[in-house]
C-alpha cells in the first residue's frame, strides 16, 4: 500500500478549483472546522492568562532557535548518556535511509507508526515500502488515509475530508477484520479500527514515531495524543525509532508548563490531552530496549537563515490556523500539495522545500491575508507577514510584473494618477465592455468609474482651501 507522493502537484488555484466544486468536501470541511473552531475558542477563553502563555511560548521558541546548535548538541549528549542513539539527517532521503537501515538491522519487515508529521514530510512509508518493509499507521485518521491510498488533508485530523459514511465503505472494502454489519456509527467504526490495530500492536517489534517536544537538558522525548495508540507503540515494541524536526526542541522540562497548556487547547480544544508519553533513552526491563532519535533538518537550517521566515519554525503543529482559515475551509487540505496544509503550510512548505515547484510558488498567494490564523496561533507566528515576505521572493509572470510596474509608475505621481483617472472617466461609458479580467467578471459586476475623480472634484470646488 503506497500513498501518492506530492511530486508534480498543480498550482494551488488549479487544485482548489476542483475542491471548491466538490459539494461533499465543502460540507465535510465546513462542519468539521466550524465545530472545532468554536470549541477551541471556548477552551482558550477559560484561561485568563492566555495572552501571557502565548507570549511565553513565542519567547521560549525564539530563545531555543537562537541557540539551536547548543541545545541540539546538549540533547544528543543527554540522549546518548541515557542509552539512546542519535542520528543526524540532512534531508528527507537521509532520514529515510537511516530509518530503513535501522529497521533492516532488526530483521523485521513490519513496523507500527505513531502519527508523525516529520515522516509524512519525508515520505518514509513509501521509502520503507520500496525496501520491502510495511508501515502500519495506528492513528485512526492516519489509518483511514492509509487504507484509502489517500493523502492527509489536515495536520491533526488527516481524514477531515472524509465523512463517516465514506469511512464505513472504506473499512468494509479494505479492512479484512471489519464486520459485515458495520454501521457508520462513530463508536462502531472506532471499535472496528481498535480490533484491527490491536493485532498490530501485539505483534510489532519495531515502532516509528515523531515527537512533539524534546527536552535538551534531560534528553527526554515527548509525544502527546488522544487515542492511546501512541502509548501502545511507544511501550510495547523492542525497538523505537523517533524522527524529529530539529526545531521541536525545548531547553528544560519546566518549559512544558507553557506548551502542555498551549497545544491541547489550540489543537483539540481539550484542557489536557488524554495521553502524554515521555521517555529518556532506554530503561532496562521496561519499554523498548533500543531507542534511536533521528534529528531531521530537511530545509530547516535554510528557513532559520531568513530573519522574517524563521518564525515558522516556532510552529507546534496544533492546526488552529487551519481550523479558522476561510481559504482552507473551501479549498481543503490537498490543494496545498504538502503534508502541511492551511496557513502554516503556505509559509512552511515553500521555505523547507524551496520556492521552485509550481505549487510551492503559488502557496504564498493562497491567502486573502485576513489574519485569522495569526490571531489564534499559540506561538504568535505572524503568518500574513511571512506570506507577504514570501510573495516578494516568488517568481512572477512577466505580464504581471509589467502591469505592477506601470501601476507603480502611475501611482508615484499625483499628476500621473490624475491623468489616468481622467482617462478612465472619459471612457466610463465603455466600462461594461472594458477588458476587466474574467476572474473578476465571472462572478461580480464591475464598478463603473465616475465621471470625476475625488481629486478633480476637490480641485473644481475647493481649490485654494
Amino acid at each position: 500500500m503506497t500513498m501518492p507522493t506530492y511530486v508534480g502537484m498543480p498550482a494551488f488555484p488549479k487544485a482548489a478549483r476542483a475542491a471548491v466544486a466538490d459539494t461533499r468536501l465543502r460540507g465535510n470541511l465546513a462542519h468539521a472546522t466550524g465545530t472545532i473552531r468554536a470549541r477551541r475558542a471556548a477552551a482558550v477563553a477559560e484561561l485568563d492568562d492566555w495572552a501571557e502563555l502565548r507570549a511565553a511560548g513565542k519567547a521560549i521558541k525564539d530563545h531555543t532557535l537562537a541557540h539551536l546548535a547548543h541545545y541540539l548538541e546538549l540533547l544528543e549528549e543527554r540522549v546518548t548518556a541515557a542509552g539512546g542513539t542519535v542520528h543526524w539527517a540532512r534531508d528527507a532521503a537521509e532520514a529515510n535511509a537511516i530509518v530503513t537501515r535501522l529497521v533492516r538491522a532488526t530483521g523485521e519487515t513490519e513496523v507500527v507508526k505513531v502519527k508523525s508529521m516529520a515522516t509524512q514530510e519525508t515520505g518514509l512509508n513509501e521509502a520503507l515500502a520500496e525496501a520491502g518493509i510495511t508501515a502500519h499507521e495506528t492513528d485512526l485518521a492516519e489509518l483511514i488515509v492509509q487504507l484509502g491510498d489517500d493523502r492527509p488533508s489536515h495536520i491533526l485530523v488527516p481524514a477531515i475530508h472524509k465523512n463517516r459514511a465514506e469511512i464505513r465503505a472504506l473499512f468494509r472494502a479494505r479492512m479484512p477484520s471489519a464486520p459485515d454489519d458495520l454501521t457508520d456509527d462513530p463508536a462502531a467504526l472506532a471499535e472496528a479500527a481498535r480490533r484491527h490495530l490491536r493485532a498490530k500492536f501485539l505483534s510489532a517489534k519495531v515502532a516509528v514515531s515523531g515527537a512533539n517536544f524534546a527536552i535538551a537538558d534531560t534528553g527526554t522525548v515527548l509525544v502527546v495524543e488522544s487515542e492511546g495508540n501512541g502509548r501502545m507503540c511507544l511501550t510495547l515494541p523492542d525497538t523505537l525509532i523517533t524522527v524529529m524536526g530539529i526545531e521541536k526542541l525545548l531547553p528544560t522540562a519546566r518549559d512544558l508548563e507553557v506548551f502542555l497548556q498551549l497545544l491541547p487547547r489550540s489543537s483539540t480544544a481539550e484542557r489536557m490531552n488524554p495521553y502524554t508519553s515521555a521517555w529518556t533513552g532506554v530503561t532496562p526491563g521496561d519499554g523498548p530496549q533500543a531507542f534511536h532519535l533521528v534529528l531531521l533538518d530537511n530545509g530547516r537550517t535554510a528557513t532559520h537563515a531568513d530573519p522574517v521566515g524563521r518564525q515558522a519554525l516556532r510552529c507546534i503543529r496544533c492546526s488552529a490556523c487551519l481550523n479558522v482559515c476561510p481559504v482552507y475551509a473551501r479549498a481543503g487540505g490537498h490543494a496545498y500539495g504538502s503534508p502541511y496544509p492551511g496557513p502554516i503550510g503556505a509559509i512552511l512548505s515553500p521555505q523547507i522545500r524551496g520556492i521552485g515547484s509550481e505549487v510551492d510558488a503559488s502557496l504564498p498567494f493562497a491567502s486573502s491575508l485576513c489574519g485569522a490564523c495569526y490571531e489564534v496561533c499559540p506561538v504568535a507566528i505572524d503568518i500574513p507577514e511571512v506570506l507577504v515576505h514570501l510573495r516578494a521572493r516568488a517568481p512572477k509572470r512577466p505580464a504581471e510584473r509589467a502591469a505592477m510596474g506601470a501601476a507603480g509608475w502611475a501611482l508615484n505621481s499625483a499628476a500621473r494618477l490624475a491623468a489616468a483617472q481622467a482617462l478612465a472617466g472619459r471612457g466610463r461609458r465603455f466600462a461594461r465592455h472594458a477588458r476587466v479580467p474574467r476572474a473578476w467578471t465571472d462572478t461580480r459586476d464591475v464598478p463603473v468609474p465616475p465621471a470625476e475623480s475625488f481629486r478633480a472634484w476637490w480641485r473644481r470646488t475647493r481649490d485654494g482651501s
Partner: protein
Amino acid sequence: MKIALFVTCVNDTLFPDTGKAVVALLERLGHRVAFPPAQTCCGQMHLNTGYPGEAVKLVEAFTGAFEDCDAVVAPSGSCAAMVREWHARLAARSGRERLAERAAALAPRVHELSELLVDVLGVTDVGASFPHRVAYHPTCHSLRMLKLGDKPLRLLREVRGLDLVDLPDAAECCGFGGTFALKNADVSAAMCADKVAAVKSTGAEVLCAADNSCLMHIGGALGRQRSGVRVAHLAEILASTS
C-alpha cells in the same frame, strides 16, 4: 481641528462619493478638512502582491505628503492599517532607516474614520439620519490589524432611523484580499458566496463597511445576483441627513 484627508487611490478613482461624504461629515461637526494634493496610494497592493520595492516608493510619497499634518483620516481600514502597521517596518526592511523613522513618527497620527470620530474627536452621535435596515461587515484589516472593535457599530447605533441587524459570521473574510480575488478567483468567489448568503439572511437593505474594496467585491456579487441589497461605505451613512 484641521484634519488632512487621505482619500486613498481606490476611493479617489472609483468611489469619490465616499471622500465627499467624509468632507461633509467632518465639516458638519465643525472641523476643517485639507486635501494634500501630492497624495496617491499607501502601497498596499504592491506590498501584498510581492512588489515591496514599488511599495516603499509609495511609502516615501505618502510620508512626504502627510508628515506636516497633525491628524490624518483615511476612509479605509486596510489603507490605514497599511500605513500604521507596515510603513515603518517596510522602510526599515528595505534599508531606509531615515524613512522608517519618519514613517514611524507619522503613523500614530493616521486614523481610520471611526477611530478619528470616536477616539480623537470623542463623538458617537454625528447627527446622521438613515432610515434603512443595515448590516455591518467589519472587514479583516479593520478588525484584526486596527482592532476597531465596536467603534463603527457605536456610530451606526446613534444614526436616526437606522435599523442595525446582526450579520451572521460577521468576522469571516469576504474573500476579496486584493489581488487574491483574481489569483484565486474560485476560492474568493466561494468565500463571497457565503458572505452574500449571510447578508441576505439578515433582510438588510444595505450592507455597510469601512472599506470600499471589500464592498466592491461583495457588492459586485450582490449586484450580479440582482439581490436588491446595496452597499454603502460607513462615511456615506454617517454623512447622510436624509
